[in-house]
């Protein structure tokens, strides 16, 4: 089974956001592989190994820095990596990213495209289904359980208050949600092996932006709250506050 797994370099989820020039101030920020992309890489490796043949290609659109995250994917066990390079890639909107990724893998053979369900920086949830739409393959998003039998794909996802089962055929795209698997950590052996695996860098053009950022700001401060008391004895005061003050009861 030939699988392409998409990887994005993002700030770690523990990042305290500061803003500079209408962007995240990169000062002191630790960058990591998007946590949902780890599920995608893990699933790709698992499916390749179960099939007993095929390869896993890790792809990232980046201004060059994502070499590190692609090496991580190689160290986990991917066979090769492709960095689609553009100096502006760090600030590009999700639909333009999707167009560039689709362009970058055009002509490659694949049975499966695997994405994280969202990147934890812009949180758009859009790249996976958009790439699939552009490439004309079916896509199932936010998958927590994936079964492949021959050409048939059966996937489950949690929607609000229910669980849906969707079916499609290969070739197909999947976006991965927490719960799908437990991503492996790269072993020392894997890290050493990754250094010898092919990592191709290719310059790529970006289409005109499809969205413009007017302003980036920190969220409004919440008004200061107050302690209503201690222990169970504070319950009547809390209920009074919720009824009379906040008017939510």
């Amino acid at each position: 089974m030939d699988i392409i797994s998409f990887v994005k370099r993002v700030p770690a989820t523990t990042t305290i956001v500061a803003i500079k020039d209408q962007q995240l101030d990169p000062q002191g920020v630790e960058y990591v592989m998007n946590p949902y992309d780890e599920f995608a890489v893990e699933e790709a490796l698992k499916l390749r190994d179960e099939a007993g043949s095929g390869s896993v290609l890790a792809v990232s659109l980046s201004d060059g820095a994502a070499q590190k995250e692609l090496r991580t994917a190689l160290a986990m066990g991917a066979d090769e990596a492709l960095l689609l390079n553009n100096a502006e890639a760090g600030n590009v909107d999700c639909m333009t990213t999707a167009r560039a990724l689709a362009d970058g893998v055009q002509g490659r053979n694949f049975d499966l495209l695997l994405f994280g369900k969202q990147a934890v920086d812009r949180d758009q949830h859009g790249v996976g289904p958009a790439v699939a739409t552009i490439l004309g393959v079916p896509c199932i998003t936010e998958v927590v359980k994936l079964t492949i039998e021959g050409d048939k794909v059966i996937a489950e996802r949690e929607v609000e208050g229910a669980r849906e089962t969707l079916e499609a055929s290969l070739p197909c795209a999947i976006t991965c949600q927490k719960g799908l698997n437990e991503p492996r950590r790269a072993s020392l052996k894997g890290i050493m092996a990754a250094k010898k695996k092919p990592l191709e860098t290719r310059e790529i053009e970006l289409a005109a932006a499809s969205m413009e950022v007017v302003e980036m700001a920190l969220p409004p401060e919440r008004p200061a709250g107050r302690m209503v008391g201690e222990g169970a004895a504070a319950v009547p005061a809390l209920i009074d506050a919720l009824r009379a003050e906040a008017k939510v009861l």
Partner: protein
Amino acid sequence: MSDILVILESRDGALRPVSLETLGAARQLADARGSQVLAVATEQGTYDAATLGAAGADKVLVADATAHSADGAAATAARIAKEQNCNLVMAASTVRGRDLGARVAALMGGGLAADCIAMDCADAASPTFTRPVYAGKAELKVRLANGVGVATLRGNFFAPAGRSAEAAVENIAAEAGKANVSGISAQSSGRPDVAEATRVVAGGRGLGSADNWHLLESLADALGAGLGASRAVVDAGWRPHSEQVGQTGKTVAPELYFACGISGAIQHLAGMRGSKVIVAINKDADAPIFQHATFGIVGDVHEVLPALTEALAAVPS
């Protein structure tokens, strides 16, 4: 100016109420434009002309698909957008809505503003949308290039129009797709989903063990609330991931959020700081959650929760 197309979401033939909020937002923009709000239901169901008209729709097009197809629904919506010259498509930011939004934006060759929490219609041709990024640690104000593309709107941030009007309802042909829903199983708890509930009761490590969750369930049922959980208790296997609030979980913005035995890690705060009123109950007076709470009680959740549940039973709702 061009009309606006809203994608309605339904499940088992019933319209999901969050779609009425999307219609309300579309109505607001259409009024600023002097244009119409069209709605497309991408599968069969009960679509009430009065309810949809009141929420903001002028016309509702109901496709003849009998089940949800992810790419089929997107193709149907994109076709209607093209036929009706709608340059902006809106949907609720649900699992299905986010999925459809990206596909429709791709089919339109437009942009995507997902999970928006505010809309400024001062430039009605190309409104400015506010959307959280970094799990709510920052907010972007964005505009779609030339106003073309898709905006998905987060639940509990927009309201149905509440006008007296009836929508015209017409039937249309659905596009077939290649990724189709073959089964839906509803959660059995009967409580609203944490992402959509107007009240949420969430618990963390301070509950002590999974066996103590009945304390939260009783409070949730007294309030008609959905249940939430911190990442720590989901990782510990006490609660399912579907209840996790925060980064790598769900982002919620209910009217009332109870954080019980939750210390308030930055990843959790990111997922619930949009809540209108936050009540924190924690035995550690220095827990970070108190800095974000509207009202706080320092105390043991094992004592406070039963007292609270009992007192609420006596409050006329």
